[in-house]
C-alpha cells in the first residue's frame, strides 16, 4: 500500500508542504488537519486591509495548485497528542490518525498575559474569526487599547485610526518595533503614528482591566487609566507544540529541524513555517524560528522534498538552506520592506534619507551586512538583497 502523509496545520506552511510533496513525486494520500474551519488563507491582511474593509475569508484563501486537489482536508479538528514511534496522532474527538510521514505545520498562537479583570472585550488577532470580532469595535469615537508595539500592534493601530477609533498603544519597549527595526527607525515610525493621532504609553505595562462583565478601561502600572471599548493583545506568540510532548523532541523554542527541515529521519517527520527552528546558511546556520510571511513557503518547499525522499527510503538533499527572510508592513500610506535579519544586528546605520521620512537602513554585525530595511524605497533594495545573498 502507498505511504500516507498527515500534515498538522492548515495554514500557508501546511499547504506549501503538501504542494511540494506532490511536486517531488509523492503520490500517496495526504491528509491536512487544521483547527480552524477554513481552507488555508492569507493572514497579513487581517491587521490591515481586511480589518479595515471587512473580513471575507473566502477572498483571503490561497489559490491551491491542481496537484493538491485530492488532499483530504480535515478542518475544524485539532490534534491533541501524538505517539510518533507508533506513528499515530490523537484528535480532540478521540479519533486516531495513522501516518507514514508527518509534516509539523502547527504554527503559533498569540501569547496571553495573566492580567486580572474582566475577560470580555480582550481580543487577540491571529485568525479571521479574531479579526471579525475586533472589527466590530473599531468605530469612530470608541477607544481601542493595543498591548504591544510590534508589527501587528502597530498595523492594527494604523488601521484603527483609519476607521476613526481613538487608539492607545501600551508597550514595555522604548520604541515601537524596536526589536526588528532598532531605536532610531522605531522612533521614526513612532513619529508617523503620532502624526496620525496614536497615543503611546511606552515603558508601561497593564496592571489590571477594569469594568463589570466587559472591559471598560485599562489601568497601567503608573496609575494611568485608559478608556477601552476593546483591548487587542499583540504581545508575541507561543508555539503550538503541546501535541508533540512526550516524544523526546527538542521543543525548547518550536521544533528543532536540520537544513532539510527534517525533525526525525527514521520516522519520516519534517516541520515547516513559524514553528520550525531551522538553520540558515546565510546567517551562520544558527537554528532560529523566523516568523516572516515568506518562510512557510520557503521551508514548506524544502520540507516536502525532504519528506518525499525519506518516504522513498532515500537521503534528503543535504545542501544548505539559504532562503532570504523578507518582511513587509503597511502602516497608513508608509511601506516598510526588509530583507535579511535586521533583528540580529549589533550596529544600525541610516544610509539614505531620514528615519521619519523615506529611508534605507543598513543592519550589520561583525560579519558585515545582515539586514536592510527600506521605508517607501522598495525598488532600491534589490542590491542590498543581492549583497545579503552573497554573504
Amino acid at each position, binding site marked *: 500500500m502507498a505511504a500516507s502523509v498527515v500534515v498538522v496545520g492548515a495554514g500557508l506552511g501546511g499547504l*506549501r508542504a503538501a504542494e511540494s510533496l506532490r511536486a517531488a513525486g509523492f503520490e500517496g494520500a495526504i491528509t491536512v488537519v487544521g483547527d480552524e474551519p477554513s481552507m488555508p488563507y*492569507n493572514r*497579513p491582511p487581517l491587521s490591515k486591509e481586511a480589518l479595515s474593509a471587512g473580513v471575507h475569508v473566502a477572498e483571503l484563501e*490561497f*489559490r491551491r*495548485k491542481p496537484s493538491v486537489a485530492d488532499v483530504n482536508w480535515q478542518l475544524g479538528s485539532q490534534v491533541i497528542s501524538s505517539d510518533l514511534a507508533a506513528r499515530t496522532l490523537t484528535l480532540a474527538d478521540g479519533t486516531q490518525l495513522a501516518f507514514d510521514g508527518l509534516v509539523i505545520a502547527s504554527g503559533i498562537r498569540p501569547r496571553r498575559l495573566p492580567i486580572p479583570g474582566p475577560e470580555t472585550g480582550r481580543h487577540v488577532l491571529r485568525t479571521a474569526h479574531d479579526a471579525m470580532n475586533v472589527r466590530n469595535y473599531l468605530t469612530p469615537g470608541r477607544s481601542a487599547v493595543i498591548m504591544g508595539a510590534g508589527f501587528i500592534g502597530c498595523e492594527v493601530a494604523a488601521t484603527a485610526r483609519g476607521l476613526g477609533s481613538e487608539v492607545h498603544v501600551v508597550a514595555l519597549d522604548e520604541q515601537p518595533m524596536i526589536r526588528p527595526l532598532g531605536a532610531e527607525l522605531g522612533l521614526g515610525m513612532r513619529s508617523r503614528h503620532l502624526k496620525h493621532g496614536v497615543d503611546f504609553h511606552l515603558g508601561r505595562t497593564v496592571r489590571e482591566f477594569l469594568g463589570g462583565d466587559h472591559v471598560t478601561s485599562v489601568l497601567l502600572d503608573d496609575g494611568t487609566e485608559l478608556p477601552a471599548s476593546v483591548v487587542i493583545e499583540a504581545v508575541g506568540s507561543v508555539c503550538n507544540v503541546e501535541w508533540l510532548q512526550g516524544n523526546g523532541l527538542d521543543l525548547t523554542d518550536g521544533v528543532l529541524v536540520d537544513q532539510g527541515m527534517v525533525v526525525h529521519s527514521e520516522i519520516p517527520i519534517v516541520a515547516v513555517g513559524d514553528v520550525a527552528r531551522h538553520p540558515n546558511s546565510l546567517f551562520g546556520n544558527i537554528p532560529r524560528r523566523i516568523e516572516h*510571511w*515568506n518562510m512557510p*513557503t520557503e521551508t514548506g518547499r524544502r520540507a516536502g522534498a525532504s519528506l518525499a525522499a525519506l518516504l522513498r527510503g532515500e537521503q534528503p538533499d543535504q545542501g544548505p538552506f539559504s532562503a*532570504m527572510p*523578507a518582511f*513587509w508592513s*503597511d502602516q497608513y500610506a508608509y*511601506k516598510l*520592506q526588509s530583507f535579511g535579519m535586521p533583528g540580529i544586528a549589533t550596529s544600525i546605520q541610516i544610509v539614505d534619507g531620514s528615519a521619519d521620512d523615506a529611508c534605507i537602513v543598513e543592519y550589520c554585525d561583525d560579519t558585515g551586512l545582515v539586514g536592510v530595511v527600506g521605508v517607501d524605497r*522598495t*525598488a532600491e*533594495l*534589490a542590491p542590498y*538583497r543581492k549583497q545579503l545573498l552573497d554573504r
Partner: protein
Amino acid sequence: MVIITVDMEKCQNYGQCCFEADDVFALNGDGQLEYVKEADESRRADIESAADICPMQAITVDKK
C-alpha cells in the same frame, strides 16, 4: 504557454516576484511593477514560485 495576470489593484509593488523570475517581472524606474503576459512553458516553475511568494497574492498563472 504560461499566461500571467497580475491584479494591479492588489499589487503593492513589493517586487518579490522579480527575484523569482526577473525575465517576467520587473520594477520600473518609478518602482511600479511591469510584467510580460505570456512566457514559455519552460519558465512555469519560476513563475509559479513568483505567484507563491507574492505578499499580496496578486499573481495568477494559467495555461494556454
